[in-house]
Every structure is written in structure tokens, then in C-alpha cells.
């Protein structure tokens, strides 16, 4: 009898340990709302693999336009409006265009999905910390398995703006981070989110991405927690490419499928890394399959190895 009661208590404790504190979920929502509803301009540092790059990000919330300018090296720019992302590459005089169609609403982290994140991550409030003059609250997302990375988020206590984010691997090593070194909230004019690049004579490369069924292509086994978000066809360097995206609600992995016909050289197969991004390339049924994702190498490789083609 006593043992039974102890078991009940233990079970209750175990359930409580899995429940997320409402405060930490409220902080995630606060960060999300600040990111969407505030106008701001700030300089941030992106660090990965011993390299760091400084960029400026400016958002005009009333028009839902955001601009990213690379401040080191080539002055590349990205401008995102409600339905388009334009990428300005001055050295090649090229504008790359990604359009969003109504049934492809970006991105997937909706308020009701924040609660679902708790299935894959333990979400808890961490210590308070001062970053770049901002008093920050930290929110730690610790993965419940080794298929995904952990995230330490640092949000400004008053505005909710995400001041810093660190991606950590299973051993707790920081593998990538974004940190604002300066941030001004408000006072953004439409002029500030326009591109500075003279793009009238530049070549426009439209990816023409559109939802489509990639007939015959499947995964022999899905990665636990990663569900198919979208399946589409697009153009890349003027060649047709299929893309299937899987996500666990926070991390995403894309599978790109390109025909090998017409390629002069066989593709290089294997794993490449860029901070928290892993890229794994292999050949399947006379196609090059490239899996790109912000997930540990083993997860990206598992998805890549599960890709198969069955003649319909």
C-alpha cells in the first residue's frame, strides 16, 4: 500500500517535471510578439566556427519589411517583405528572389505551436544576464533527445526583443551564436529598409518556388519529431530542384532533389558543416540528394539516408 502511494507520488513528480513552466512559454510568446510587432534597427554579430561577422538588421513593423545588411566584406543585402525575400549580391549584380504564396505561409512557429515544442524540448527560464546594455532574461530549450540542438535565448526584459541566441550541442558546447551589440527600438523610416544597391540593370533570378508533389520520393523512416511541412518545386541556377521541408517546430531540415542528367562531374558526396547547419549529399536513383538542416550531423545524415525513390 505504502509502495503504491510512493509510486503515485513519483508519477506525479515525473509528470510535473515534464510540464513546462507557464513563465517560460510566456517568454517565448513575448519574444515572438516583439520580433513581429516592434520596429528596430541594430547591429549584431554572428559567430560560428571561430569566424564572426557583423550585420545590421532593420525592421519597419507597420509595413512588415525587414532588411539585413552585411557590414563586413561584400555589402550584401536581404530585404524581406510580406510575400518576398530579395537577396542583393553586388559582386555578381544579381538579385535572387524567393516568393511566398498564400498557402506557403512562413514560418511555422505559431503561438499554439509553442506549447507543442515541449514535446521535444524542455523549456525553462535561466539566469538573468546583462548583454550589450540590456537586462536580459534567458530561456533555455534543452532537447529531450540527441536528434536536435539546444538553444539559449536571451531576451530584453522590458521589450521582449531577442538580444542573443546561442545554439548548443549535446555536450553543451556553443556551436553558433547571434548577439546584438547595439539595438534601437523605434524611429525606423521607410527609407531605412530600402536596398542601397542600384539594382535596375541587375539580373533577377526568381526561384519560382511553388508547392508541388514530388512523385515517387519518400523517406523510408522519418526522423522522430520532424514532420513534413511543405513539398515544392523551385529553380536553382536555372535547373529544376525539388524541396521537402521537415520541422520539429523549431529546427528545420530541407531535402533538395536534383536530377544528375546534364551534370559534367559526379557530385561530391559526404558531410559539410557551417555552424549549426549540416549539409549531407548523396546520390539516389540518378539524382543528387542534398539535405540541409540546423540539426546535428547524425540527424541530417539519417534523413539523407532514408531518402528513397519508388517508381510510381
Amino acid at each position, binding site marked *: 500500500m505504502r509502495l503504491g502511494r510512493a509510486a503515485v507520488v513519483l508519477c506525479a513528480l515525473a509528470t510535473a517535471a515534464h510540464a513546462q513552466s507557464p513563465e517560460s512559454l510566456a517568454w517565448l510568446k513575448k519574444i515572438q510578439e516583439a520580433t513581429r510587432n516592434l520596429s528596430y534597427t541594430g547591429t549584431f554579430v*554572428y559567430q560560428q566556427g571561430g569566424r564572426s561577422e557583423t550585420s545590421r538588421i532593420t525592421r519597419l513593423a507597420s509595413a512588415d519589411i525587414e532588411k539585413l545588411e552585411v557590414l563586413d566584406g561584400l555589402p550584401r543585402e536581404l530585404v524581406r517583405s510580406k510575400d518576398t525575400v530579395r537577396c542583393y549580391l553586388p559582386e555578381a549584380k544579381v538579385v535572387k528572389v524567393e516568393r511566398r504564396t498564400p498557402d506557403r505561409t*512562413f514560418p511555422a512557429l505559431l503561438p499554439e505551436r509553442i506549447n507543442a515544442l515541449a514535446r521535444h524540448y524542455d523549456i525553462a527560464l535561466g539566469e538573468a544576464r546583462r548583454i550589450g546594455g540590456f537586462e536580459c532574461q534567458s530561456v533555455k530549450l534543452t532537447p529531450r533527445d540527441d536528434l536536435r540542438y539546444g538553444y539559449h535565448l536571451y531576451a530584453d526584459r522590458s521589450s521582449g526583443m531577442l538580444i542573443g541566441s546561442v545554439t548548443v550541442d549535446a555536450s553543451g558546447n556553443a556551436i553558433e551564436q547571434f548577439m546584438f551589440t547595439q539595438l534601437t527600438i523605434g524611429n525606423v523610416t521607410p527609407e531605412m529598409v530600402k536596398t542601397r544597391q542600384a539594382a535596375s540593370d541587375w539580373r533577377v533570378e526568381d526561384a519560382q518556388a511553388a508547392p508541388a508533389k514530388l512523385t515517387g520520393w519518400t523517406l523510408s523512416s522519418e526522423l522522430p519529431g520532424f514532420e513534413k511541412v511543405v513539398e515544392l518545386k523551385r529553380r536553382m541556377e536555372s535547373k529544376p530542384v525539388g524541396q521537402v521541408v521537415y520541422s520539429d517546430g523549431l529546427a528545420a531540415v530541407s531535402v533538395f532533389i536534383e536530377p544528375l542528367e546534364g551534370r559534367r562531374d559526379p557530385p561530391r558526396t559526404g558531410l559539410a558543416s557551417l555552424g549549426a547547419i549540416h549539409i549531407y549529399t548523396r546520390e539516389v536513383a540518378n539524382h543528387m540528394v542534398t539535405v540541409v538542416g540546423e540539426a546535428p550531423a547524425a540527424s541530417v545524415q539519417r534523413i539523407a539516408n532514408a531518402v528513397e525513390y519508388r517508381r510510381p
Partner: protein
Amino acid sequence: MKERISALMDGELDERAADEATHALRGEGEALEAWRTYHLISDAMRDTRLLSAGFTARLAQRLANEPTVIAPANLRRAPVKRIAFAAAASIAGVGLVGWLAFAPQPQTSQPVAQAQSPAMKTIPLPSATNDYLLAHQGFSPRVSLQGMAPYVRTVAEHPVEPVK
């Protein structure tokens, strides 16, 4: 051996015994385990800030990357001012932690990946990396927490595989 390690930490061993104990620490055995555990305990008792996970491995890697000193200066026994020395060491420790905790380590992910799967061949980033990232980034839910910041990867100048 555990008692010896404890005594070593407390500075209670004579030179020869200390040498033996230090030698034992070179192996990855019980002695090293005890050394780590006792330090952890003493840190906890003194309420010292704990090192982040993986600190040892990262410090070892940093040390491995340090240039080797070919001609070290002669070691001379100087009278050690214990308290000052210990204090300096602990301050240096905290400074290093603060700094390491916020500095992603180069190439951490690759050796880990290789350790998990020896068959995984590492290659340079594909020449179309930025195109893949631009196509991928729009579907990353992180954008709703972070705005466009993660897009910086799509325009960064990465050392990619040369286009043939």
C-alpha cells in the same frame, strides 16, 4: 590512491609522494576521476561558479592549438605565496569561463560527427550552399523568434568547393 589525491589537493604530500600522485593522474583512471570529483565537491562547497559542460574538452583543444614553446625557461623553485596564487588562479578561471561560454569553438561539430559515424566523409561546403540556405531559411521557424538574423548565413562568404 583516492586518499593520496585528496592529500595532494590539500598540499599534504612530500615531493616524492606528490610526484607519484601526479604521475597517476596522467592515466585516465581512478586517480583522475577522484581528482575531478574532489574538485567538483570543493567547488560546490565553496559555491564557486561551475564550469560549463564540455569545458575540459574545449580547454584541451585550446591548449592543443597553442604554439609549442621550444626552449622553455628553467624552472626555478620560487617561494610560492599560496593565497595570492590561488586567488589569481580562480580569477583567471572565471574570466576564461565567461569568455568560453560565449565563444563557439571552431570545428567542434565535425569531430563529434565523425566520432558518431566513422563512415561519414567530410567534404567542403557545396558551391551552391548559399542557394540551398536561402531556399531553406524561409521555412525555419526560428525566423519568427529572431527575425531575419539567421538569413545572414545565406549571404555570408563561406569557403566553398570551387566551381568546376
